[in-house]
């Protein structure tokens, strides 16, 4: 027993366990389920029933078996390589779009620490910068896939992806500088902790959405573009360039791209929640229990951690849902309009936000 506890205190072992639990147990699971839920939710929006045919005998689980059916089907399909493709790049490209979406989770805290145990895979002190570095890597998957496919549509998709992601990163970063300034740190766990401080004598939490409302809209828009979701999905706009950069892929590699898209939705939601919606924080819940207007309710640390994890997961799922509903509500921009929006509207706005934030901080300091 002691030996097991000893082993558990080794940081590497802890990290491996966290990776298994967080990434495999949460991110991958949610990403996979989202592939089905997107279809179910969109059919609800569109007055349809949605997929419900995959079955084992009489059991369909209202379509739940489609996840298994899709997985099995994509694994069993032939993995084609088009003629004239750059074979090596073609085969590894899906991984490039897959890993960045997963790597982000290294710095996302799921719950507040209990003693020395943190619910975060690693708490590097440049967490936000790390998130940026990693999400911008996502462009490689698309560009390499599109370039290596030897297909003009795929190439167009790849070019669109690269320019879109590079452009939107600019104001994405700028919009977050406000957050750095308000909380005075780039360490993700600190930012989340600081979002549990309050205005007006413990009444309104200092969540990012309240301290930086404009930055939230800018950031969320930019993140939609980074995840290549509608209204910014020209890289794969099916009515123009069919499926864009992953047009030629089939079988398991195709589903890797698809899964990467959904995992990046989860990642986008998690980052948004972490930075703007208090991360795992529940308003007025402190490590020792609830405190509001003089009333208080003491809770054991394990319960607090569980509540916090639950809150983080719920918020993330709500954002995943919102992103999917937005997709089925809005048309998509044309490519030049995306660029216009990014450079001519979002960038000045984020700069203005920066200036205003700086002024407010200067005056209130």
């Amino acid at each position: 027993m002691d030996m097991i506890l000893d082993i558990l205190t080794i940081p590497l072992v802890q990290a491996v366990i966290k990776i298994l639990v967080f990434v495999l147990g949460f991110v991958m699971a949610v990403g996979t389920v989202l592939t089905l839920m997107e279809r179910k939710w969109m059919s609800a929006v569109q007055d349809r029933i949605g997929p419900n045919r995959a079955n084992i005998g009489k059991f369909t689980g209202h379509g739940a078996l489609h996840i298994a059916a899709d997985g099995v089907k994509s694994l069993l399909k032939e993995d084609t390589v088009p003629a004239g493709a750059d074979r090596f790049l073609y085969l590894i490209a899906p991984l490039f779009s897959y890993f960045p979406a997963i790597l982000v989770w290294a710095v996302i805290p799921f719950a507040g620490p209990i003693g020395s145990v943190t619910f975060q895979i690693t708490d590097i002190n440049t967490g936000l910068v790390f998130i940026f570095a990693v999400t911008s890597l996502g462009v490689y998957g698309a560009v390499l896939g599109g370039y290596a496919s030897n297909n003009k549509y795929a190439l167009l998709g790849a070019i669109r992806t690269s320019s879109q992601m590079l452009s939107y990163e600019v104001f994405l970063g700028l919009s977050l500088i406000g957050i750095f300034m308000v909380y005075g740190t780039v360490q993700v766990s600190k930012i989340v902790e600081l979002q549990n401080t309050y205005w007006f004598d413990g009444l309104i939490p200092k969540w990012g959405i309240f301290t930086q409302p404009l930055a939230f809209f800018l950031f969320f828009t930019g993140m939609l573009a980074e995840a290549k979701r509608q209204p910014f999905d020209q890289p794969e706009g099916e009515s123009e360039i069919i499926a864009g950069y992953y047009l030629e892929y089939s079988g398991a590699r195709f589903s890797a791209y698809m899964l990467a898209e959904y995992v990046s939705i989860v990642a986008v939601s998690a980052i948004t929640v972490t930075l703007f919606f208090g991360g795992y924080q529940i308003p007025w819940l402190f490590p020792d229990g609830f405190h509001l207007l003089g009333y208080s309710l003491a809770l054991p640390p394990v319960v607090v951690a569980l509540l916090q994890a639950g809150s983080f997961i719920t918020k993330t799922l709500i954002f995943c849902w919102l992103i999917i509903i937005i997709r089925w509500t809005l048309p998509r921009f044309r490519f030049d309009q995306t660029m216009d929006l990014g450079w001519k509207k979002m960038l000045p706005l984020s700069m203005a936000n920066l200036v205003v934030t700086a002024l407010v901080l200067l005056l209130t300091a």
Partner: protein
Amino acid sequence: MTAPAETPPITARVEEKFPGAVTASHQQFGDETITVAKDQYLAVMTLLRNDPTLKFNLMVDLSAVDFLGQSPRFQVVVHLKSLSLGHRLRVKVGVGEDGPEACTLPTISKLWVAADWYERECFDMYGIRFQGHPNLKRLLLYESFVGHPLRKDYDIHLQQPRVELRPVRERYDYQNRNLTDPSETERRPL
């Protein structure tokens, strides 16, 4: 098909400008129709388009009818409409298949852009060549199609030979293509 007692205004106007160009006319079912001589066809059409009392600015339809066994064999039928004046006219012109000018007719695509595709379709279906047409090639059928299917002597059950499979260049080496070789860089004219 009795000739009307009174010549309708459009026909009268055309006859006034080009005496002898209108070889026949009728007003069956209220559709005013003139048949014009082939050599005057383009001139009459230009008049119909530009004359201030006619102003046929909308070319509605161009087609042909194959009267197999009669001479001239084909009749190209053009339907015109004037949006400002509201009248319609059907212009017919006979196209024979004998002589040096067999199955040819001057194009009217210079007058109405719309005629471009209609003439291509007419060429496709009847084999009537429109002289001066900018891009007279088959429209609905494929290039290797033999014959013109709407001619009356084209049997409805006739089967065309299958288009031969064209070889696909396997594994074209894009990395090592020779850009000085014209066949590699040449582009199909659009």
